[in-house]
């Protein structure tokens, strides 16, 4: 069994062919880069996706040495994300599914990050930190759902870093550039540390950091922003570990690539006798494989929709989605 996954949630248009035993046969992507200092414009990004889609799709099939006719299912990212971008992927998936008469499977982008992470790291039943552009959540699986242990009450960690990066002129996504800058920071500047139970709030850090840029070196602000935000996350993760006593903790999503965060989480995992898994850097950002693999999991359970009922949902919430393979 092999299937195609199409990802078009935000910056990235990606396509991947995967087998149902978890071999990634191809994983091709093309990332939209907005002008420096600007954020992603949904319309511009969706135009980019439409432009690159034929090339990306074709390449993903060639690399996997398959044709559309060989596929057993088509999966697409149905949300959450930017409406115009999601519709590009959904429309293509709908068309391919109808034309070649293949089962069509809409999947949740965030769960794609998690399940691909589990496939690649071998984590069985981890406490999950989902740190993508659109999610900052701590989750654990129970009774066929990924349940939210704690989450941000406003912007995500990814947005915090990205928007700070943009305010100093970096191009989005600016995580790696902010990280490089932060490694040159020395002086710690106190920023709002907001933890409410297991929930977090980052918007205060962003406002304060931008404002303080006029008084402190930009390296020190990047450093302090990372330290405060990651400490908040590490603290809530530790709280969740202490409460759930999970033997594994897994980090997925674009922010998983950050080395400083990894350092903090390694310490926590060790303190609570838990094993830390981090999704490989090549698969940390949005990609087609996360969609294809999730499609493969659903395909085993016979999940599909008719093309006319294919949908996108910009605000699709993760704990509403059934994941039948997770007890």
């Amino acid at each position: 069994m092999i299937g195609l996954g199409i990802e078009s949630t935000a910056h990235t248009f990606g396509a991947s062919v995967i087998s149902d035993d978890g071999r990634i046969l191809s994983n091709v992507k093309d990332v939209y880069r907005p002008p420096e200092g600007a954020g992603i414009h949904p319309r511009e990004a969706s135009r980019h996706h439409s432009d690159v889609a034929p090339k990306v799709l074709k390449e993903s099939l060639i690399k996997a040495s398959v044709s559309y006719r060989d596929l057993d299912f088509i999966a697409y990212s149905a949300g959450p994300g930017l409406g115009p971008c999601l519709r590009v992927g959904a429309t293509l998936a709908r068309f391919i599914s109808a034309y070649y008469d293949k089962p069509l499977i809409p999947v949740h982008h965030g769960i794609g990050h998690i399940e691909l992470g589990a496939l690649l790291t071998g984590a069985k039943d981890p406490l999950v930190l989902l740190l993508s552009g659109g999610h900052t959540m701590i989750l654990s699986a129970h009774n066929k759902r990924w349940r939210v242990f704690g989450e941000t009450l406003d912007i995500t960690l990814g947005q915090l870093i990205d928007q700070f990066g943009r305010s100093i002129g970096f191009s989005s996504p600016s995580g790696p550039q902010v990280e490089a800058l932060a490694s040159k920071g020395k002086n710690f500047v106190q920023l709002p540390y907001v933890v409410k139970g297991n929930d977090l709030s980052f918007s205060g850090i962003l406002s304060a950091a931008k404002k303080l840029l006029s008084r402190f070196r930009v390296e020190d602000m990047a450093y302090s922003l990372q330290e405060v935000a990651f400490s908040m996350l590490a603290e809530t993760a530790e709280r969740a570990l202490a409460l759930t006593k999970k033997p594994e903790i897994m980090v997925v999503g674009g922010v998983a690539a950050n080395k400083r965060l990894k350092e903090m989480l390694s310490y926590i995992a060790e303190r609570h006798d838990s094993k830390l898994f981090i999704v490989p850097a090549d698969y940390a950002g949005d990609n087609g494989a996360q969609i294809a693999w999730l499609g493969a999991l659903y395909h085993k359970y016979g999940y599909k929709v008719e093309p006319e009922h294919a949908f996108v949902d910009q605000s699709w919430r993760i704990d509403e989605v059934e994941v039948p393979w997770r007890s």
Partner: protein
Amino acid sequence: MEKLISKGAEANIYLGKWGPLDVIYKVRVKKPYMVEDLDSYLRRIRTVREAKMLRAARNCILTPYVLYVGLNSFTIVMQYVYGKTMKELINNRPDLSFIAGEYLAKLHNNGIAHGDPNTSNLLLELNSGKWYMIDFGLSYYTQRVEDYAVDFHLFREIINVQHSDVYEQAYEFFSKGYFSTSRIAKDKFMNKVEEIERRGRYARRRKFEF
């Protein structure tokens, strides 16, 4: 002399003696992964806050007596409550969450937000059958309904993730307990709770059917 009985996220809990009394030593331990300034700031402010609010909350609910506060060692010595947490009991007795609602509303009526209400922070003392609330490190004085609504949301979130098998019953009892005691009108309060949950990411609920 002191025996480590629990390793929480931010503190080690030791069982020890204070004169003839059995007591808890709650020691906020250094987090080596944090910047020194941030770590000591957080440990100090939370130790002070917890000691102060444990006392303040005694006006309306039961909390352990504070015997000693060590600001340099980030330590609070308090009465040892021998019993079980609500977390251990609730899966068989979802009606117990009534108490959680009642206690939370009592705090709110007295202008206190707990900041971290969950089923591990309520202890049933086995000898007396009385409930104690603990872990006040994130609590604060406030008159804002929004802060109370965040408390309510946090407890609901925790029973949803940790006690999902009994979530519906447990939530119903929690809500009953809360509104049996709260001075705020239910409609107005629930609007606030929903507003907070909407502000979160992707708060729209959708029934997804294949």
